[in-house]
């Protein structure tokens, strides 16, 4: 009994398992077939729709064309008319723009010219609208026409920019004039500008004369010692000319009386002169000059001048035009030694 039950149970299990397998395999087959069918249906539907659409469109359009032949004719005439008007308008606008350009170069912008410009601008806008409609209606415009229209619009735009620039320029000028007037009125003096006064003219003329005489003179290359700071070393009263004689006369007069750096007046004057003397000593210290000798280095000169070799940087900085490198100095060079 038990065996039989066991057998039955096993048989049942086998059967059950077969059932499950069978169900699984049959289920998969069914699904694949249904999917394929569905896809085929969809494709068929799409194709039929496309075919129907195509034939429908084909059948419908000739009837419309036939029906609206009159409308088409009217549209064509309208387009032709608009084309003609575009041409005439473009010519007019071109002429107007040209006239306007010539007017601008000759005169300042006026209210009438601005009005005219506005009307032309409107015309151009209308024209562009018409062109747009023409393009959208017919989709046909000759390249020449398009080029003309583009040229016209561009010229109008450029013209407008020029106008704006000239207007802003005039505005700036007037603002500047206003500012200078304001400044002059506030300060109560004339504007700081070059006057064409007689004195200035005279000075200019005489300076030009100087230039001419300088050109004409045969320049003698005197053996004057000019350094890089435009200092010329000259022995005082060494010449034979009248100015040198005058200078030596004055010098001898002063030295005879021994009053050159002296004052016998008030204490105030004495202190002033003393302060001047102190100042000149400071200046002498400020502008010491050392002539480079054999065996000198900037360090050695610094040691002599300041007692410190490292102070050579000070000398190097004070002579930028003479010293390009701190380790390159030459015999005979005159170096400024700052305080």
């Amino acid at each position, binding site marked *: 009994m038990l065996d039989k039950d066991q057998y039955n149970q096993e048989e049942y299990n086998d059967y059950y398992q077969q059932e499950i397998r069978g169900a699984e395999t049959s289920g998969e087959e069914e699904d694949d077939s249904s999917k394929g069918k569905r896809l085929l249906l969809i494709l068929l539907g799409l194709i039929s729709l496309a075919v129907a659409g195509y034939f429908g469109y084909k059948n419908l359009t000739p009837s419309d064309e036939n029906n609206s032949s009159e409308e088409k004719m009217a549209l064509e005439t309208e387009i032709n008319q608009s084309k003609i008007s575009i041409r005439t308008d473009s010519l007019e606008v071109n002429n107007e723009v040209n006239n306007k350009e010539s007017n601008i170069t000759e005169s300042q912008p006026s209210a009438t010219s601005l009005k005219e410009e506005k009307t032309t601008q409107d015309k151009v806008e209308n024209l562009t609208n018409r062109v747009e409609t023409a393009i959208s209606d017919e989709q046909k415009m000759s390249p020449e026409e398009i080029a003309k229209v583009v040229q016209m619009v561009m010229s109008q735009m450029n013209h407008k920019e020029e106008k704006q620039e000239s207007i802003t320029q005039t505005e700036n000028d007037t603002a500047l004039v206003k500012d200078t007037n304001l400044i002059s009125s506030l300060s109560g003096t004339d504007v700081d500008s070059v006057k064409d006064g007689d004195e200035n003219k005279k000075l200019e003329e005489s300076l030009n004369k*100087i230039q001419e005489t*300088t050109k004409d003179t045969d320049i003698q290359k005197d053996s004057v010692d000019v350094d890089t700071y435009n200092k*010329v070393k000259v022995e005082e009263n060494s010449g034979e000319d009248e100015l040198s004689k005058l200078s030596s006369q004055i010098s001898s007069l002063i030295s005879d009386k021994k009053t050159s750096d002296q*004052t016998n007046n008030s204490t105030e004057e004495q202190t002033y002169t003393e302060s001047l003397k102190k100042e000149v000593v400071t200046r002498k210290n400020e502008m010491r000059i050392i002539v480079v000798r054999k065996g000198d280095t900037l360090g050695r000169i610094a040691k002599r001048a300041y007692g410190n070799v490292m102070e050579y940087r000070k000398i190097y900085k004070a002579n930028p035009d003479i010293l390009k490198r701190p380790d390159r100095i030459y015999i005979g060079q005159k170096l400024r*030694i700052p305080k």
Partner: protein
Amino acid sequence: MKKLLILPLFASLVWGDTEHVTVKLTDTLPYAYTTDSGKKIKIERIQDTSNRLSDDYSKTSRPCPPFCIQPTKIHPDVKNIAELELIQFMQDKVAQNRGVVIDARLKSWFELETIPSAINIPFPVMQNADKRKAELIFKILGMKVEEDGTWNFDDAKELAVFCNGVWCEQSAHFMSGMLKYNYPTSKLNYYRSGFQGWKLLGLTTIVHKEIKK
């Protein structure tokens, strides 16, 4: 081969004659000439455009008093002049012995550095001069004493007076001495910018006594 050697020499001579002046006196005048101690001096500006005043005459502050900013005019009738007028003065008046540029500073300052063609009459000399000394100085400057003893300034030289600059009162002291003995105001010019103004423009200066160490 000779041509190769001569050509650069010739070119250098031509180049030297027509040297390019970057820093001119005015747009039409590159430089001018005057004389000092019998030598021809070229008045030009320092050509190094990166040059700056350093040490001498770059000082901004000295105690005031006495180094105070000077008024524009020394005297209502004394003409103020600037650099270009001074150069013109050198060309017109000094060159023809009708004018003299006066450095009114102390001799020590004058010797250190001065403006070309200037002669030195230190301000205390003129400021403290009595009539006799003034007469001597004026005579050197071209004044004539008439038979009746009056001073005739007709041929007296025109003067352009300067000192250290706008902070310097030495010119004013000098002028006071000149005006005290009636030197004509029409023959007096005041270069107020003075030596500092001259230096600021990098113009040629004269050194009579070089400082060496």
